[in-house]
């Protein structure tokens, strides 16, 4: 299987199911914890794959497909806007900054581990 469409697509299907599983398992009444978790975990895994300099087919399957689909920017945006509209501006700020800072840190840890 070397067709990019299939590699990205099946990786994407696995990533989407993984994210859906996390959202059904993790409760997040006041803080959208499940989206935060998938974004940080997916960023870490993407860092490992890209810094390890693996074959292009694995980059497409795991990196573009699975990690790209497991993590989400659209749900993150909707979560943040909703928190602001419900008056939780401080939580929204912590959530928005936390996503990027912890994801970037996770990528840094991946770099230390692999590179």
């Amino acid at each position, binding site marked *: 299987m070397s067709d990019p469409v299939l590699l990205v697509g099946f990786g994407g299907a696995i*990533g989407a199911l993984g994210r859906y599983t996390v959202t059904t398992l993790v409760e997040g009444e006041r803080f959208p914890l499940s989206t935060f978790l998938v974004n940080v975990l997916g960023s870490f895994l993407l860092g490992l794959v890209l810094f390890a300099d693996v074959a292009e087919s694995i980059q497409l399957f795991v990196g*573009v497909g699975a990690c790209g689909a497991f993590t989400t920017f659209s749900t993150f945006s909707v979560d943040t806007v909703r928190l602001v509209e419900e008056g939780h501006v401080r939580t929204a700020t912590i959530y928005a900054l936390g996503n990027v800072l912890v994801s970037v840190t996770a990528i840094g840890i991946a770099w230390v581990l692999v590179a």
Partner: protein
Amino acid sequence: MTDYEWFAGIQVVILVAIGGFLGANARFGVGLVSPGLSGTFVANVTGSFVLGFVVYEAMYTDYLTDRSRLLVSTGFLSSYTTYSTFAYQTVTVEPLVGLINVAASYSCGFAGVVLGRWVALRIRGGSRE
């Protein structure tokens, strides 16, 4: 677990998987047309806009069924947009470019959600006339 619950569970898995397959490829396609930061930016902002519309459409008009919403939002849009590639690209470019990327992606992504909600509200207004 009854046969019905089992069948409903399988349906959910299939819908999320199909949405994920298509969403990841749509993002991959955008990245081929516009490589690097810009492609990820376009996917994330357009995906946030459409998800904003779908989420608020559910509250205001309820045109979409639960199954189509699962396919479109949980499957397609959440896979079409990506946080991991966004974060990775942010740390692998120059610090100033990375900061601008975060500020632009966040502000345009949030604006996209608000715009999507506005469109959903407009449609509700239209359907009531």
